[in-house]
């Protein structure tokens, strides 16, 4: 295979940082139940609380108690939506509770499906559309928040992801939360992709809930967190013991939490330099592809974008075929093509930006990270051009026609 191996799928998951791996291995012998009162239990608990403070610091949360550890992003998101089910369902002394849910058409499937479940239960649910760059329209959000100008009554929750996993588009969560708060709605943001790549500050953003996942910031899989603003009621998704203020039962995942804490600490420490290096690599990749491959389209926002994410459509070539061709050259990426998902539907994110099915099927996401070098970027550019040329030569679809649609 020539020996060159390039991982460019960091938005899917990241490798463990060496420091995190070493700390977790060292911690593996700590077997005590962190809920136990004896000394070993108290020692284990101390490590967890230190980790909690580090995760809180990553998102500017003043009080570590506002961080609840979960099994990951999907559980955190489901905890929020499950809470909305309880809040919106209850009749309080004859008063009708808020029930309307506003989210977007480009959320991660766990938010989309949790929102759809609420819609099935009779909640008014709105999936805000996005513009061609993947951003929501604040005027539309304002209109949806106003019961006099839209259906569904007063809004219970506004849930907008901070940054999109596929196209990297970053939303203005501060402005979104301000509008939502003015109408009395709760605000949630899935910040799984944003964490460690752009600054997050729960106070400036003014949100009630933030979802985090550890394996996207060079920590272990199977551990995540939900930030809950003080005083915001939250129902447990998993009931049981009194762990995590009764909001999330289950024996503490000692090593996962320890790894999360260290990964968060290092992500915060390195944030500026990491983001700057990523921006440089992204620009090198963008320019290189633009110079070597004709008739392409870059997806997502030009500036409000994650520094590590570049999404490109290659009209005339199909995404799975591109992905597998790159794979044979040792390059690992992802695609928005339906053929890679087993369904007939291409990426719902790209379709929401209005690019059309041809461009969605022919899209490739390059997501870079700590291990990516300039050599890697140059290797990808070198290998990509002939692959696209080859696939386009055997294609029924003229690339120039598709590129102009």
């Amino acid at each position: 295979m020539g020996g060159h191996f390039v991982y460019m799928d960091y938005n899917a998951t990241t490798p463990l940082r060496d420091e995190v791996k070493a700390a977790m291995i060292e911690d593996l012998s700590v077997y005590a139940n962190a809920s136990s009162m004896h000394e070993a239990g108290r020692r284990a608990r101390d490590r967890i609380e230190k980790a909690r403070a580090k995760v809180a610091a990553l998102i500017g949360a003043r009080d570590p108690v506002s961080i609840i550890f979960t099994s990951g992003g999907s559980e955190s998101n489901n905890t929020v939506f499950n809470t909305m089910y309880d809040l919106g369902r209850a009749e309080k002394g004859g008063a009708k509770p808020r029930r309307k849910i506003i989210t977007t058409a480009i959320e991660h499937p766990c938010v989309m499906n949790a929102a759809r479940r609420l819609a099935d239960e009779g909640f008014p649910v709105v999936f805000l559309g996005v513009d061609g760059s993947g951003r929501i329209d604040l005027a539309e959000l304002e209109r949806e928040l106003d019961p006099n100008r839209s259906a569904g009554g007063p809004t219970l929750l506004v849930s907008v992801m901070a940054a999109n996993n596929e196209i990297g588009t970053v939303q203005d969560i501060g402005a979104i939360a301000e509008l939502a708060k003015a109408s009395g709605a709760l605000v949630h943001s899935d910040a799984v992709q944003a964490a460690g790549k752009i600054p997050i500050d729960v106070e400036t953003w003014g949100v009630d809930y933030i979802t985090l996942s550890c394996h996207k910031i060079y920590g272990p899989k199977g551990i995540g967190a939900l930030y809950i603003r003080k005083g915001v009621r939250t129902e447990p998704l998993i009931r049981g013991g009194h762990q995590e203020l009764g909001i999330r039962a289950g024996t503490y995942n000692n090593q996962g939490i320890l790894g999360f804490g260290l990964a968060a600490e290092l992500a915060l420490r390195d944030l500026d330099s990491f983001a700057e290096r990523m921006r440089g690599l992204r620009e090198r990749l963008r320019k290189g592809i633009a110079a070597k491959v004709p008739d392409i389209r870059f997806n997502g926002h030009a500036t409000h974008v994650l520094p590590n994410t570049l999404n490109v459509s290659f009209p005339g070539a199909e995404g799975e075929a591109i992905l597998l061709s790159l794979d044979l050259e040792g390059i690992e990426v992802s695609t928005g093509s339906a053929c890679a998902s087993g369904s007939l539907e291409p990426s719902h994110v790209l379709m929401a930006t209005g690019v059309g099915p041809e461009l969605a099927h022919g899209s490739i996401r390059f997501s870079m990270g700590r291990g990516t070098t300039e050599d890697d970027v140059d290797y990808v550019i070198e290998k990509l051009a002939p692959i696209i040329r080859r696939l386009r030569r055997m294609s029924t679809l003229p690339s120039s026609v598709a590129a102009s649609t």
Partner: protein
Amino acid sequence: MSDTFQWLYSPVVKEHFMNPKNVFDPEEGFTADSEGVVGNVKCGDQMMFMLKIKDDRIDDVRWKTYGCASAIASTSMLSEVIKGMAIRDAYSIKPADIASRLGGLPENKIHCSVLGDKALRAAIDSYLEKTGRPGAFKGEEAVVICNCLNITDKDIEQAVKDGTRNWEQLQAATKIGTVCGGCKPKAEELLHELVHIYGN
């Protein structure tokens, strides 16, 4: 990334994906006696077959496809299989024959291989029309779907070609399922597949 871990598909699929046979090259000067195009770019695949036909035998073949690795490999394999074959025999090749020659395809990839034979059939149909025998092979290999009214898969295929897109339209066009209704699940599945193929 390494040779030690198996590829997503069979080695035969990989070979035909990386080194496809009989791909149309505009510089080669291939002139076809007939062409057939099917597929729906919305669903991510489109296929074209070009045939040179001598004495009702496929003398040579070229193809193009916009599609995934399975689609490319399936079409490449199909193009090898039909060389020298009588058009009547080529007309009845089924996707399953091609999939098995490829060493199998994952369940969710079978639909990627169903376009090749349809494009081939479209090209043969076009040839038959040109040579004054329109629809000569129609009804061959037909499978009865609706037993009450003797409606075949070919009838449904023709209805879709003529513009049918949903169950109501299919019933209006063929009266299918208006007696016992027992064929509906099977017929709807076929309709869905055919709309995917001819729907655009």
